[in-house]
Protein backbone atom coordinates (compact mmCIF):
# COMPACT_ATOMS: atom_id res chain seq x y z
CA UNK A 1 0.00 0.00 0.00
CA UNK A 2 2.73 2.45 1.02
CA UNK A 3 5.01 1.38 -1.84
CA UNK A 4 2.19 1.86 -4.31
CA UNK A 5 1.61 5.30 -2.81
CA UNK A 6 5.30 6.23 -3.17
CA UNK A 7 5.36 5.03 -6.79
CA UNK A 8 2.18 6.89 -7.66
CA UNK A 9 3.47 10.09 -6.03
CA UNK A 10 6.65 9.96 -8.11
CA UNK A 11 4.63 9.27 -11.28
CA UNK A 12 2.20 12.11 -10.55
CA UNK A 13 5.05 14.53 -9.85
CA UNK A 14 6.68 13.70 -13.18
CA UNK A 15 3.35 14.05 -15.02
CA UNK A 16 2.69 17.36 -13.29
CA UNK A 17 6.04 18.86 -14.29
CA UNK A 18 5.53 17.57 -17.85
CA UNK A 19 2.06 19.15 -18.20
CA UNK A 20 3.20 22.45 -16.67
CA UNK A 21 6.17 22.63 -19.03
CA UNK A 22 3.97 21.85 -22.03
CA UNK A 23 1.43 24.51 -21.09
CA UNK A 24 4.00 27.22 -20.38
CA UNK A 25 6.07 26.51 -23.50
CA UNK A 26 3.03 26.49 -25.80
CA UNK A 27 1.66 29.66 -24.17
CA UNK A 28 4.99 31.39 -24.76
CA UNK A 29 5.02 30.13 -28.35
CA UNK A 30 1.64 31.72 -29.12
CA UNK A 31 2.61 34.96 -27.36
CA UNK A 32 5.82 35.11 -29.38
CA UNK A 33 3.97 34.47 -32.66
CA UNK A 34 1.40 37.15 -31.89
CA UNK A 35 4.01 39.70 -30.80
CA UNK A 36 6.65 39.61 -33.55
CA UNK A 37 6.92 37.79 -36.87
CA UNK A 38 8.48 34.31 -36.36
CA UNK A 39 8.77 35.08 -32.63
CA UNK A 40 7.50 31.56 -31.80
CA UNK A 41 11.03 30.12 -31.63
CA UNK A 42 12.04 32.81 -29.16
CA UNK A 43 8.83 32.08 -27.23
CA UNK A 44 9.67 28.36 -26.98
CA UNK A 45 13.18 29.27 -25.81
CA UNK A 46 11.91 31.64 -23.12
CA UNK A 47 9.13 29.22 -22.12
CA UNK A 48 11.56 26.31 -21.65
CA UNK A 49 13.86 28.50 -19.61
CA UNK A 50 10.95 29.75 -17.49
CA UNK A 51 9.53 26.29 -16.77
CA UNK A 52 12.99 24.85 -16.03
CA UNK A 53 13.57 27.64 -13.53
CA UNK A 54 10.15 27.08 -12.00
CA UNK A 55 10.81 23.35 -11.68
CA UNK A 56 14.26 23.84 -10.13
CA UNK A 57 12.89 26.34 -7.60
CA UNK A 58 9.98 24.11 -6.57
CA UNK A 59 12.12 20.95 -6.44
CA UNK A 60 15.17 22.25 -4.58
CA UNK A 61 13.77 25.08 -2.49
CA UNK A 62 10.02 24.56 -2.62
CA UNK A 63 9.85 23.99 1.14
CA UNK A 64 11.76 27.21 1.94
CA UNK A 65 9.49 29.18 -0.42
CA UNK A 66 6.37 27.81 1.30
CA UNK A 67 7.77 28.16 4.81
CA UNK A 68 8.79 31.77 4.29
CA UNK A 69 5.41 32.53 2.66
CA UNK A 70 3.75 31.72 6.02
CA UNK A 71 6.54 33.29 8.11
CA UNK A 72 7.69 30.03 9.75
CA UNK A 73 10.59 30.13 12.23
CA UNK A 74 12.95 27.18 12.69
CA UNK A 75 13.09 25.51 16.12
CA UNK A 76 16.57 25.36 17.65
CA UNK A 77 17.57 21.65 17.88
CA UNK A 78 19.28 22.34 21.23
CA UNK A 79 16.29 24.03 22.85
CA UNK A 80 14.81 20.65 23.93
CA UNK A 81 11.30 21.98 23.40
CA UNK A 82 8.41 19.53 23.58
CA UNK A 83 7.69 19.89 19.85
CA UNK A 84 11.29 19.03 18.91
CA UNK A 85 11.27 16.05 21.30
CA UNK A 86 8.02 14.71 19.85
CA UNK A 87 9.33 14.97 16.26
CA UNK A 88 12.55 13.23 17.32
CA UNK A 89 10.56 10.37 18.88
CA UNK A 90 8.59 9.90 15.68
CA UNK A 91 11.76 9.91 13.60
CA UNK A 92 13.11 7.10 15.81
CA UNK A 93 9.83 5.18 15.53
CA UNK A 94 9.59 5.51 11.74
CA UNK A 95 13.32 5.25 11.01
CA UNK A 96 13.14 8.48 8.96
CA UNK A 97 15.78 11.21 9.01
CA UNK A 98 15.00 13.97 11.50
CA UNK A 99 13.24 16.73 9.50
CA UNK A 100 13.78 20.44 10.12
CA UNK A 101 11.15 21.66 12.60
CA UNK A 102 9.36 25.02 12.25
CA UNK A 103 6.79 27.00 14.21
CA UNK A 104 4.33 29.22 12.33
CA UNK A 105 3.07 32.28 14.25
CA UNK A 106 -0.59 31.55 13.54
CA UNK A 107 -3.35 31.12 16.19
CA UNK A 108 -5.29 28.53 14.15
CA UNK A 109 -4.40 24.93 15.12
CA UNK A 110 -2.79 23.34 12.06
CA UNK A 111 0.42 21.74 10.71
CA UNK A 112 2.06 20.76 7.42
CA UNK A 113 5.10 19.00 5.99
CA UNK A 114 7.01 19.97 2.83
CA UNK A 115 10.18 19.02 0.95
CA UNK A 116 11.35 16.75 -1.86
CA UNK A 117 12.21 13.49 -0.05
CA UNK A 118 12.58 12.14 3.51
CA UNK A 119 16.17 13.40 3.71
CA UNK A 120 15.19 16.95 2.73
CA UNK A 121 11.95 17.49 4.61
CA UNK A 122 10.52 20.18 6.86
CA UNK A 123 7.70 19.96 9.37
CA UNK A 124 5.85 23.11 10.41
CA UNK A 125 3.38 23.47 13.28
CA UNK A 126 1.18 26.48 14.05
CA UNK A 127 1.43 28.11 17.47
CA UNK A 128 -2.32 27.52 17.87
CA UNK A 129 -1.83 23.75 17.65
CA UNK A 130 0.82 23.76 20.40
CA UNK A 131 -1.53 25.67 22.69
CA UNK A 132 -4.57 23.49 22.02
CA UNK A 133 -3.20 19.94 22.18
CA UNK A 134 -1.59 17.86 24.93
CA UNK A 135 1.53 15.77 24.36
CA UNK A 136 -0.20 12.59 23.09
CA UNK A 137 -2.42 14.54 20.69
CA UNK A 138 0.52 16.57 19.36
CA UNK A 139 2.36 13.30 18.82
CA UNK A 140 -0.55 12.00 16.73
CA UNK A 141 -0.54 15.08 14.48
CA UNK A 142 3.26 15.03 14.12
CA UNK A 143 3.11 11.31 13.23
CA UNK A 144 0.49 12.09 10.57
CA UNK A 145 2.84 14.66 9.01
CA UNK A 146 5.79 12.26 9.27
CA UNK A 147 3.68 9.71 7.34
CA UNK A 148 3.26 12.23 4.52
CA UNK A 149 7.07 12.51 4.48
CA UNK A 150 7.43 8.72 4.51
CA UNK A 151 4.90 8.20 1.70
CA UNK A 152 6.52 10.94 -0.47
CA UNK A 153 3.23 12.89 -0.47
CA UNK A 154 5.32 15.98 0.24
CA UNK A 155 7.14 15.91 -3.13
CA UNK A 156 3.96 16.18 -5.18
CA UNK A 157 2.23 18.54 -2.78
CA UNK A 158 5.24 20.89 -2.62
CA UNK A 159 5.67 21.05 -6.41
CA UNK A 160 1.93 21.65 -6.87
CA UNK A 161 1.85 24.33 -4.20
CA UNK A 162 4.83 26.27 -5.60
CA UNK A 163 3.90 25.89 -9.30
CA UNK A 164 0.21 26.57 -8.72
CA UNK A 165 1.19 29.54 -6.57
CA UNK A 166 3.32 30.92 -9.41
CA UNK A 167 0.52 30.43 -11.98
CA UNK A 168 -1.96 32.23 -9.71
CA UNK A 169 0.56 35.05 -9.25
CA UNK A 170 1.24 35.38 -12.99
CA UNK A 171 -2.48 35.18 -13.77
CA UNK A 172 -3.32 37.99 -11.37
CA UNK A 173 -0.45 40.04 -12.82
CA UNK A 174 -1.85 39.67 -16.34
CA UNK A 175 -5.39 40.35 -15.21
CA UNK A 176 -4.21 43.68 -13.85
CA UNK A 177 -2.12 44.61 -16.90
CA UNK A 178 -5.00 43.59 -19.15
CA UNK A 179 -7.14 46.08 -17.29
CA UNK A 180 -4.54 48.86 -17.61
CA UNK A 181 -3.70 47.87 -21.20
CA UNK A 182 -7.37 48.13 -22.11
CA UNK A 183 -7.68 51.63 -20.71
CA UNK A 184 -4.52 52.76 -22.48
CA UNK A 185 -5.83 51.48 -25.80
CA UNK A 186 -8.93 53.58 -25.43
CA UNK A 187 -6.74 56.64 -24.97
CA UNK A 188 -4.21 56.49 -27.81
CA UNK A 189 -5.64 53.71 -29.98
CA UNK A 190 -2.25 52.08 -30.61
CA UNK A 191 -3.69 48.53 -30.70
CA UNK A 192 -1.59 45.31 -30.70
CA UNK A 193 -0.77 45.06 -27.01
CA UNK A 194 -4.38 44.68 -25.98
CA UNK A 195 -4.83 41.67 -28.27
CA UNK A 196 -1.88 39.84 -26.75
CA UNK A 197 -3.08 40.48 -23.26
CA UNK A 198 -6.54 39.30 -24.21
CA UNK A 199 -4.93 36.07 -25.46
CA UNK A 200 -2.96 35.73 -22.21
CA UNK A 201 -6.09 36.31 -20.21
CA UNK A 202 -7.81 33.53 -22.14
CA UNK A 203 -4.87 31.16 -21.59
CA UNK A 204 -4.93 31.73 -17.87
CA UNK A 205 -8.71 31.44 -17.80
CA UNK A 206 -8.23 27.96 -19.26
CA UNK A 207 -5.38 27.21 -16.84
CA UNK A 208 -7.22 28.14 -13.67
CA UNK A 209 -9.54 25.09 -13.47
CA UNK A 210 -6.62 22.78 -14.35
CA UNK A 211 -4.67 24.24 -11.46
CA UNK A 212 -7.66 23.74 -9.16
CA UNK A 213 -7.91 20.10 -10.25
CA UNK A 214 -4.20 19.55 -9.57
CA UNK A 215 -4.46 21.02 -6.08
CA UNK A 216 -7.38 18.72 -5.44
CA UNK A 217 -5.34 15.71 -6.60
CA UNK A 218 -2.53 16.76 -4.28
CA UNK A 219 -4.57 15.80 -1.25
CA UNK A 220 -6.79 12.91 -2.13
CA UNK A 221 -8.88 11.48 0.65
CA UNK A 222 -7.17 8.13 0.32
CA UNK A 223 -3.76 9.54 1.14
CA UNK A 224 -5.10 11.36 4.21
CA UNK A 225 -6.64 8.12 5.49
CA UNK A 226 -3.37 6.30 4.76
CA UNK A 227 -1.37 8.95 6.65
CA UNK A 228 -3.74 8.62 9.63
CA UNK A 229 -3.28 4.84 9.59
CA UNK A 230 0.53 5.10 9.34
CA UNK A 231 0.48 7.63 12.18
CA UNK A 232 -1.35 5.11 14.37
CA UNK A 233 1.35 2.54 13.55
CA UNK A 234 4.13 5.01 14.43
CA UNK A 235 2.70 6.15 17.77
CA UNK A 236 1.00 2.81 18.61
CA UNK A 237 -1.79 5.01 19.89
CA UNK A 238 -4.69 5.77 17.50
CA UNK A 239 -6.56 7.48 20.34
CA UNK A 240 -4.07 10.38 20.47
CA UNK A 241 -4.69 11.40 16.87
CA UNK A 242 -8.44 10.79 17.20
CA UNK A 243 -8.60 13.09 20.26
CA UNK A 244 -6.58 15.73 18.41
CA UNK A 245 -9.04 15.64 15.51
CA UNK A 246 -11.97 15.86 17.91
CA UNK A 247 -10.47 18.97 19.53
CA UNK A 248 -9.77 20.54 16.12
CA UNK A 249 -13.34 19.90 15.08
CA UNK A 250 -14.67 21.84 18.05
CA UNK A 251 -12.61 25.03 17.60
CA UNK A 252 -12.90 27.66 14.89
CA UNK A 253 -10.01 30.11 14.80
CA UNK A 254 -9.40 31.94 11.54
CA UNK A 255 -5.96 31.26 10.04
CA UNK A 256 -3.87 34.43 9.62
CA UNK A 257 -0.89 33.20 7.61
CA UNK A 258 -2.25 30.46 5.34
CA UNK A 259 -2.65 31.15 1.63
CA UNK A 260 -4.32 29.20 -1.17
CA UNK A 261 -1.04 27.70 -2.31
CA UNK A 262 -0.24 26.08 1.05
CA UNK A 263 -3.84 25.11 1.87
CA UNK A 264 -3.71 21.54 0.46
CA UNK A 265 -0.58 20.76 2.51
CA UNK A 266 -2.20 21.45 5.85
CA UNK A 267 -3.32 18.86 8.41
CA UNK A 268 -6.91 20.08 8.27
CA UNK A 269 -8.70 22.42 5.88
CA UNK A 270 -7.48 25.92 6.87
CA UNK A 271 -10.37 27.78 5.27
CA UNK A 272 -13.31 28.24 7.58
CA UNK A 273 -16.97 28.03 6.54
CA UNK A 274 -16.02 25.49 3.96
CA UNK A 275 -18.30 22.57 3.15
CA UNK A 276 -15.99 19.56 3.50
CA UNK A 277 -18.08 17.34 1.24
CA UNK A 278 -18.04 19.86 -1.60
CA UNK A 279 -16.29 19.13 -4.90
CA UNK A 280 -13.29 21.34 -4.22
CA UNK A 281 -12.61 20.14 -0.68
CA UNK A 282 -9.00 18.99 -0.32
CA UNK A 283 -9.49 17.07 2.93
CA UNK A 284 -11.88 14.30 3.97
CA UNK A 285 -14.44 15.19 6.65
CA UNK A 286 -12.90 15.06 10.14
CA UNK A 287 -15.69 12.84 11.43
CA UNK A 288 -14.81 10.06 8.97
CA UNK A 289 -11.18 10.23 10.03
CA UNK A 290 -12.09 9.94 13.73
CA UNK A 291 -14.39 6.98 12.99
CA UNK A 292 -11.60 5.08 11.23
CA UNK A 293 -9.07 5.75 14.00
CA UNK A 294 -11.52 4.61 16.66
CA UNK A 295 -12.19 1.48 14.65
CA UNK A 296 -8.42 0.77 14.79
CA UNK A 297 -8.34 1.36 18.53
CA UNK A 298 -11.15 -1.10 19.16
CA UNK A 299 -10.10 -4.01 16.95
CA UNK A 300 -6.66 -4.37 18.51
Amino acid at each position, binding site marked *: *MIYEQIASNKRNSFLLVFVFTLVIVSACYFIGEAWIKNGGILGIFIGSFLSLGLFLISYYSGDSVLLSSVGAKQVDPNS*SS*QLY*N*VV*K*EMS*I*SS*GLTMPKVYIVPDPSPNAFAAGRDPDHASLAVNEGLLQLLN*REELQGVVAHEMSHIQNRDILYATIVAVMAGMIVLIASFFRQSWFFGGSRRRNNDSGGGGGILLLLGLIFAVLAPIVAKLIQLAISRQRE*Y*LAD*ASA*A*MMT*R*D*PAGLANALRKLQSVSIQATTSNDAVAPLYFTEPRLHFNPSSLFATHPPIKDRID*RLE*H*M*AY*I*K
Partner: protein
Amino acid sequence: MWFGIIGAIVLVVLWAISKYNSFIVLRNRIENAWAQINVELKRRYDLIPNLIEAVKGYMKYEKEVLESVTNARAAAMQAKTPAESGPAEDKLTQAVHNIFVVMENYPDLKANENVLRLQEELTTTENKIAFSRQFYNDIVMRFNQSIQTFPSSFFANLFGFKAREYFEVDQAQVKDAPKVDLTI
Protein backbone atom coordinates in the same frame (compact mmCIF):
# COMPACT_ATOMS: atom_id res chain seq x y z
CA MET B 1 33.34 -31.41 -16.75
CA TRP B 2 36.13 -29.73 -14.75
CA PHE B 3 34.78 -26.35 -15.75
CA GLY B 4 31.43 -27.33 -14.32
CA ILE B 5 32.91 -28.36 -10.95
CA ILE B 6 35.11 -25.25 -10.71
CA GLY B 7 32.13 -23.08 -11.68
CA ALA B 8 29.99 -24.66 -8.94
CA ILE B 9 32.73 -24.13 -6.32
CA VAL B 10 33.13 -20.48 -7.37
CA LEU B 11 29.36 -19.96 -7.06
CA VAL B 12 29.25 -21.48 -3.58
CA VAL B 13 32.21 -19.35 -2.44
CA LEU B 14 30.61 -16.16 -3.84
CA TRP B 15 27.34 -17.02 -2.09
CA ALA B 16 29.17 -17.65 1.19
CA ILE B 17 30.95 -14.29 0.93
CA SER B 18 27.69 -12.42 0.32
CA LYS B 19 26.06 -14.25 3.27
CA TYR B 20 29.02 -13.44 5.51
CA ASN B 21 28.78 -9.77 4.58
CA SER B 22 25.04 -9.67 5.26
CA PHE B 23 25.67 -11.18 8.74
CA ILE B 24 28.25 -8.48 9.43
CA VAL B 25 25.90 -5.69 8.27
CA LEU B 26 23.10 -6.92 10.53
CA ARG B 27 25.42 -7.45 13.48
CA ASN B 28 26.76 -3.89 13.17
CA ARG B 29 23.22 -2.55 12.99
CA ILE B 30 22.31 -4.43 16.16
CA GLU B 31 25.34 -3.03 17.96
CA ASN B 32 24.56 0.47 16.74
CA ALA B 33 20.93 0.19 17.86
CA TRP B 34 21.99 -1.13 21.26
CA ALA B 35 24.44 1.76 21.63
CA GLN B 36 21.62 4.19 20.81
CA ILE B 37 19.39 2.65 23.47
CA ASN B 38 22.24 2.85 25.97
CA VAL B 39 22.65 6.57 25.31
CA GLU B 40 19.00 7.11 26.24
CA LEU B 41 19.17 4.75 29.24
CA LYS B 42 22.17 6.65 30.57
CA ARG B 43 20.37 9.95 29.98
CA ARG B 44 17.51 8.65 32.10
CA TYR B 45 19.85 7.56 34.92
CA ASP B 46 21.25 11.12 34.95
CA LEU B 47 17.84 12.81 34.92
CA ILE B 48 16.23 10.82 37.74
CA PRO B 49 18.36 12.17 40.65
CA ASN B 50 17.62 15.71 39.38
CA LEU B 51 13.88 15.03 39.41
CA ILE B 52 14.00 13.52 42.90
CA GLU B 53 16.01 16.50 44.13
CA ALA B 54 13.48 18.91 42.60
CA VAL B 55 10.34 17.24 44.04
CA LYS B 56 11.77 16.08 47.39
CA GLY B 57 10.93 19.34 49.17
CA TYR B 58 7.28 19.16 48.12
CA MET B 59 6.72 15.42 48.55
CA LYS B 60 7.61 14.94 52.22
CA TYR B 61 4.92 12.31 52.71
CA GLU B 62 5.75 10.30 49.60
CA LYS B 63 9.04 8.77 50.76
CA GLU B 64 8.11 5.28 49.51
CA VAL B 65 7.46 6.47 45.98
CA LEU B 66 10.80 8.27 45.79
CA GLU B 67 12.69 5.39 47.39
CA SER B 68 11.23 2.86 44.96
CA VAL B 69 12.52 5.01 42.07
CA THR B 70 16.01 5.21 43.57
CA ASN B 71 16.06 1.43 44.07
CA ALA B 72 14.73 0.69 40.60
CA ARG B 73 17.38 3.00 39.12
CA ALA B 74 20.17 1.22 41.02
CA ALA B 75 18.87 -2.19 39.89
CA ALA B 76 18.60 -1.07 36.27
CA MET B 77 22.16 0.27 36.28
CA GLN B 78 23.39 -3.18 37.48
CA ALA B 79 21.92 -4.95 34.44
CA LYS B 80 24.49 -5.79 31.77
CA THR B 81 22.86 -7.74 28.96
CA PRO B 82 19.79 -6.78 26.89
CA ALA B 83 17.79 -9.66 28.42
CA GLU B 84 18.53 -8.43 31.97
CA SER B 85 18.01 -4.75 31.12
CA GLY B 86 14.53 -5.19 29.70
CA PRO B 87 12.61 -6.11 32.90
CA ALA B 88 14.77 -3.84 35.10
CA GLU B 89 14.11 -0.84 32.83
CA ASP B 90 10.40 -1.62 32.82
CA LYS B 91 10.34 -1.47 36.63
CA LEU B 92 12.12 1.87 36.48
CA THR B 93 9.64 3.22 33.92
CA GLN B 94 6.78 2.18 36.19
CA ALA B 95 8.41 3.79 39.25
CA VAL B 96 9.02 7.11 37.45
CA HIS B 97 5.46 7.03 36.21
CA ASN B 98 4.28 6.70 39.83
CA ILE B 99 6.03 9.99 40.67
CA PHE B 100 4.14 11.69 37.84
CA VAL B 101 0.84 10.28 39.11
CA VAL B 102 1.53 11.46 42.68
CA MET B 103 2.60 14.87 41.34
CA GLU B 104 -0.99 15.44 40.25
CA ASN B 105 -1.85 15.96 43.94
CA TYR B 106 0.63 18.84 44.32
CA PRO B 107 -0.48 21.98 42.45
CA ASP B 108 2.77 23.76 43.45
CA LEU B 109 4.81 21.11 41.65
CA LYS B 110 2.77 21.37 38.50
CA ALA B 111 3.54 25.10 38.40
CA ASN B 112 7.29 24.62 38.94
CA GLU B 113 9.17 25.35 35.65
CA ASN B 114 12.14 23.20 36.59
CA VAL B 115 9.98 20.19 37.47
CA LEU B 116 7.96 20.56 34.27
CA ARG B 117 11.15 20.67 32.21
CA LEU B 118 12.46 17.52 33.92
CA GLN B 119 9.12 15.80 33.40
CA GLU B 120 9.21 16.58 29.67
CA GLU B 121 12.84 15.41 29.44
CA LEU B 122 12.04 12.12 31.19
CA THR B 123 8.92 11.56 29.09
CA THR B 124 10.77 12.05 25.80
CA THR B 125 13.68 9.87 26.96
CA GLU B 126 11.25 7.11 27.91
CA ASN B 127 9.45 7.33 24.57
CA LYS B 128 12.77 7.24 22.72
CA ILE B 129 13.74 4.10 24.65
CA ALA B 130 10.39 2.47 23.83
CA PHE B 131 10.58 3.29 20.11
CA SER B 132 14.25 2.31 19.73
CA ARG B 133 13.54 -0.95 21.57
CA GLN B 134 11.04 -1.84 18.86
CA PHE B 135 13.64 -1.12 16.19
CA TYR B 136 16.35 -3.08 18.04
CA ASN B 137 14.15 -6.16 18.52
CA ASP B 138 13.16 -6.11 14.84
CA ILE B 139 16.79 -6.26 13.69
CA VAL B 140 17.69 -8.92 16.27
CA MET B 141 14.84 -11.03 14.93
CA ARG B 142 16.09 -10.66 11.34
CA PHE B 143 19.66 -11.48 12.37
CA ASN B 144 18.65 -14.54 14.39
CA GLN B 145 16.42 -15.77 11.59
CA SER B 146 19.16 -15.48 9.02
CA ILE B 147 21.80 -17.31 11.11
CA GLN B 148 19.43 -20.05 12.26
CA THR B 149 17.81 -21.04 8.97
CA PHE B 150 19.37 -23.61 6.67
CA PRO B 151 21.61 -23.38 4.62
CA SER B 152 23.00 -20.06 5.85
CA SER B 153 23.10 -21.51 9.39
CA PHE B 154 25.96 -23.76 8.19
CA PHE B 155 28.16 -20.74 7.45
CA ALA B 156 27.00 -18.88 10.54
CA ASN B 157 28.29 -21.78 12.65
CA LEU B 158 31.49 -21.93 10.64
CA PHE B 159 32.22 -18.22 11.20
CA GLY B 160 31.04 -18.32 14.82
CA PHE B 161 27.98 -16.03 14.67
CA LYS B 162 25.69 -16.47 17.68
CA ALA B 163 22.02 -15.57 18.14
CA ARG B 164 21.50 -12.22 19.90
CA GLU B 165 19.34 -11.47 22.95
CA TYR B 166 16.14 -9.51 22.66
CA PHE B 167 15.61 -6.43 24.77
CA GLU B 168 12.75 -8.16 26.57
CA VAL B 169 9.59 -6.39 27.58
CA ASP B 170 6.92 -7.26 30.06
CA GLN B 171 4.13 -7.95 27.60
CA ALA B 172 1.39 -6.53 29.81
CA GLN B 173 2.95 -3.06 29.73
CA VAL B 174 3.56 -2.79 26.02
CA LYS B 175 1.03 -1.14 23.80
CA ASP B 176 0.29 -3.51 20.94
CA ALA B 177 0.66 -2.19 17.45
CA PRO B 178 -2.85 -1.29 16.32
CA LYS B 179 -4.23 -3.43 13.56
CA VAL B 180 -4.74 -1.24 10.54
CA ASP B 181 -7.72 -1.93 8.36
CA LEU B 182 -7.81 0.19 5.22
CA THR B 183 -10.73 -1.58 3.58
CA ILE B 184 -13.53 0.50 5.07
